[in-house]
């Protein structure tokens, strides 16, 4: 039994099958990249795992526990944490409060000083220590991303879902971001990351799964996947139609 099992997951919107029978697994402690051209269904799949969308059919299991059919908050309390493609921070809460909520309402259900401690630790891990009382709405883009990551970490999750977390960063920020994710993984965190930036994927993920038009077209070692003709034509178009 694998840690995260995605078992013939399907998501249908009217006539469109955004996720079309996708199956793969992630072992505990792995860091796996989820690749694919735009519109291939990657974020939809992440949404299925985190419970943001209900699956049309299929099953998703974490540690043997069935996630499909549960409410989003139940899935969060099962240990699933994520970041969003468009950063979602809470403008009326302070930085600490923004991060604290997953510690308070997540599995571990901390409160008071303990919750603050967890939040501060998470802020430290992402490099935002000492700014606990800043107004969340005033942060720069990269800092907002860090904040969102800290919030996910404060949940003390079993698995972290990153939805193009490295997008929109300049080269310096990008290498800092990659280093941060590597540090988290080395600390034992299981990570499934949707990403477009191939260099980052090569640097971080020994294994990738590739989607195209809702279907899984590759599930192998990163170097092999990126040389796979099916993957290449999915991104660039060609004989095998995308």
């Amino acid at each position, binding site marked *: 039994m694998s840690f995260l099992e995605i078992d013939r997951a399907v998501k249908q919107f009217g006539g469109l099958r955004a996720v079309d029978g996708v199956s793969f697994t992630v072992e505990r402690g792995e860091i796996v990249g989820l690749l694919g051209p735009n519109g291939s269904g990657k974020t939809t799949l992440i949404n299925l795992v985190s419970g*943001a969308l209900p699956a049309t059919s299929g099953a998703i299991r974490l540690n043997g526990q069935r996630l499909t059919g549960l409410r989003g908050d139940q899935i969060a309390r099962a240990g699933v944490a994520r970041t969003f493609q468009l950063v979602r921070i809470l403008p*009326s*809460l302070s930085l600490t409060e923004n991060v604290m909520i997953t510690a308070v309402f997540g599995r571990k259900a901390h409160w008071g000083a303990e919750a603050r401690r967890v939040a501060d630790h998470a802020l430290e891990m992402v490099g935002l220590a000492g700014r606990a009382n800043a107004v969340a709405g005033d942060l720069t883009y990269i800092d907002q991303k860090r904040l969102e990551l800290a919030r996910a970490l404060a*949940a003390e999750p079993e698995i972290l879902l990153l939805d193009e977390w490295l997008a929109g960063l300049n080269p310096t920020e990008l290498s800092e971001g990659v280093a941060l994710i590597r540090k988290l993984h080395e600390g034992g965190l299981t990570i499934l990351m949707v990403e477009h930036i191939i260099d980052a994927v090569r640097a971080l993920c020994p294994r990738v799964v590739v989607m195209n038009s809702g279907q899984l077209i590759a599930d192998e070692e990163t170097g092999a996947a990126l040389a796979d003709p099916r993957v290449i034509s999915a991104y660039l178009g060609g004989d095998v139609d995308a």
Partner: protein
Amino acid sequence: MIRILLPLIGLGLLALGPMVVSDYGLGLLIGAATYVTLASAWALFSGQTHYISLATVAFYGTGAYTVAVLNEALPYGAVLICAALIGGAMALVVGLSTLRLRGVYFVIFSFGLAELVRQVITWYEVNVTGTLGRYIFLDITTRQIYWQMLALGAVTIALTAWINRSRLGLALRVIGDDETVATHSGINLARVKLVAFVLSAVILTLAGAITSPRYVYVEPAIVFNPTVSFLTVIMALLGGANRLWGPALGAVPLFLVFEWLSSNFPDTYPIFLGLLFIGVVFLVPNGLISSAESLVSRKKEAGR
């Protein structure tokens, strides 16, 4: 410490009010205390979650009508408890059906709820019990009504303060900002919203029950007056619906303005109220307290 002491002293002074004011003044005090309670209870739910409830008078009127129906059958305390239970049950039904959905459905339902309750009660009274108007003959003095309302208002604000420090309060604020983030943090949206909504509704119902003896003669059309819902919202908005003292700050002056307008312009005051409401939505959308805070912080920035 001073945060508790100051309000307590203020409460004590207000409780002494009836000793020094005239009967008319006492009426004003009751009205102001009622609206402070209504606005604060409204803000307890709607202020944080941004689920705008337009149903204040549905609960207020139910409270008043419960007293009208039961006042000769049960002792006063039991009547109040009944009113609270009925208000809570109504809120449960409304909440369970609409709070799982998008906010706008809740607003729409709350918009028509008062009208629905009024019609149902009217139908019932006309067809089943045969008495449309009812009398309240309770041996309660105006002062006692005032003190009860003052107590209810104090409890409401104290409850809000306590909730603000609690997990429920944090959850409500998160829900108000972003429900997706709330869910993904492990917050059970429906349950949190329901708890806050029911609490708020029970207080609104009790407020109606407490003030009902002042009506003496009660009829659905009288106690389900849409102006109550309207005033409650604008008062909370004006002061600041997500601040502890915001609703109270908005309620007192607006109540006095309303009294003055309705006595001097009995036909045209709805026009002024409507304009005032629109003005608040456009000019002070986050309430006066927030505007004052940003003004102060902007001056600090400028002075640096």
